[in-house]
């Protein structure tokens, strides 16, 4: 007979590694369910994404129609349309805007309760955010893409590796975007009110992430500098250039590799900031 009782599973039973994987998975599930409850908001957001998709697509197509060789910054009209519509789909997946949960919890003091949990805040919030992104991928990604495909000629990937590479790139973008938001929010540990940094983030993430226009339209040196020196182009520009096949296979893979570097760096920075903040909190609160 099965001897298992209702007691809490001990660490020795399934091993610490498997236990933390299970916890991480449960948190991803909870993030997914949390966003699945806002069904009307999902519909409303999708509608708005589609309207903006039409706007941006028409404007960029008008740019392409008059540009030299009809290829502004090396994109064909179809590639630009793909850039716009996949971008509108990804917007809600990577969650560029509107996350102030950590800053709010720091300001209200609720963060103290989070520190007592066995999961460190960085990992806990990351898991919930991955669940949110998964929900976004299933509900918010496809409708704008369908709308775009119905009303505009889109570029269909021609290389076998593009779609798998794009999937990896999106996952990395989600992690990088979360890391950036975590660090921006964490400034509240020192500032109490993170509104300033969050405003700055909202502004720069949209423009320098490649949402308003492909960054390739800027002078080449500036684009390269942004890509190498900041994580921002790794948020939208990279996955979009990958799926639009703007570059050759080598550069396409190289951009994703750069994303890996940024994902590691930004998570390390997040962990470092959190450690410093906790030390400070202990000193302050005893």
């Amino acid at each position, binding site marked *: 007979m099965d001897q298992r009782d209702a007691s809490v599973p001990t660490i020795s039973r399934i091993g610490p590694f498997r236990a933390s994987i299970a916890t991480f998975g449960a948190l991803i599930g909870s993030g997914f369910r949390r966003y699945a409850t*806002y069904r*009307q*908001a999902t519909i*409303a*957001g999708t*509608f*708005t994404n589609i*309207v*903006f998709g*039409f*706007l941006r697509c*028409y*404007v*960029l197509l*008008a*740019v*392409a129609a*008059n*540009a*030299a060789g009809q290829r*502004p*910054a090396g994109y064909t009209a179809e590639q630009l349309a793909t850039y716009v519509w996949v971008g509108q789909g990804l917007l809600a997946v990577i969650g560029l805007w509107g996350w102030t949960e950590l800053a709010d919890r720091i300001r209200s003091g609720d963060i103290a309760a989070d520190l007592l949990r066995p999961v460190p805040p960085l990992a806990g919030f990351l898991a919930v955010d991955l669940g949110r992104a998964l929900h976004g991928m299933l509900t918010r990604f496809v409708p704008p893409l369908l709308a775009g495909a119905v*009303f505009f000629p889109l570029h269909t990937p021609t290389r076998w590796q593009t779609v798998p590479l794009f999937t990896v790139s999106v996952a990395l973008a989600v992690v990088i975007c979360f890391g950036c938001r975590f660090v921006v929010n964490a400034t509240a540990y020192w500032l109490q*009110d993170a*509104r*300033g940094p969050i*405003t*700055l983030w*909202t*502004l720069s993430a*949209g*423009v320098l992430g490649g949402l*308003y*226009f492909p960054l390739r*339209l*800027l002078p080449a040196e500036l684009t390269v500098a942004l890509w190498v020196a900041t994580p921002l182009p790794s948020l939208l520009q990279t996955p979009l250039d990958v799926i639009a096949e703007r570059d050759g296979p080598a550069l396409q893979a190289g951009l994703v590799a750069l994303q890996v570097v940024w994902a590691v760096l930004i998570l390390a920075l997040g962990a470092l900031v959190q450690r410093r903040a906790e030390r400070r909190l202990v000193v302050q609160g005893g």
Partner: protein
Amino acid sequence: MGELRAYAALGAAQVRSATTYRTSFLIELFGNMGATVFDVITVLVLFRVTPALGGFSLAEAMLITGLSTAGFTLADFAVGNVDRLKSMVRAGTLDAVLVRPLGALPQLLLMDLPIRKALRVVFGFTVLVLAVAANDIDWTPARVLLLVVAPVAAAVFFGSIFVSSASLAFWWVDSGEVGAAFTYGGRDFTSYPMSVYGGWFRGLFAYALGFAFVAYQPALVLLGVPDPLGLPAWSGFLSPVVALAAAAFAAGVWRAGIRHYRSTGS
């Protein structure tokens, strides 16, 4: 008279509260302007790779962007905060506004007069002035009058869009971002020549909803350029008429919404 004093008191309280936390206020002041600055920069970046957009040069396109930006920032400053309505309906705090013997809409707007958005208005009108200077406009009394009237009409139009889309919350509490498609979407739409857009999308936004008359048609009159889409030359002067129609519509929607409102009871 007493009513006016009450409104003035509400407004003055806002100025005091905004200036209390000075650093935070300054950050928001410049942050808010930043968003509008980037909209204009986007137009400049696009023109880096193309000599013309929808048949218009950079200077001409900037006049359209300037009219739209000036009107939008003014409207956003005056009534943009009406979009807080959805959280008030959800939380039931709208009841407190309704029981006071003052108009609900003016109270709502004065309860949070966004002084932090003031710099944006200044920037919006600066773009308009620079765009007017950059174009070689053949001034006539009618054009001077239009240049004065058009930004105000644009502001009234955008204000009506703000009120109408916020009123959605009376019927659909979780309307979320739908309003943004028409407010911020409308701003982006009117920032470019209508010849950029095509198909039913242009028909719907430009003519059925009237966005073409915010900046594009008045700009054509100022520039003395015939409309590539075929509307007659005088259609630019329709912008105040379209704005008044939008305002009447918004007032109707708002009143119907207030009548429809059932408190959450909390």
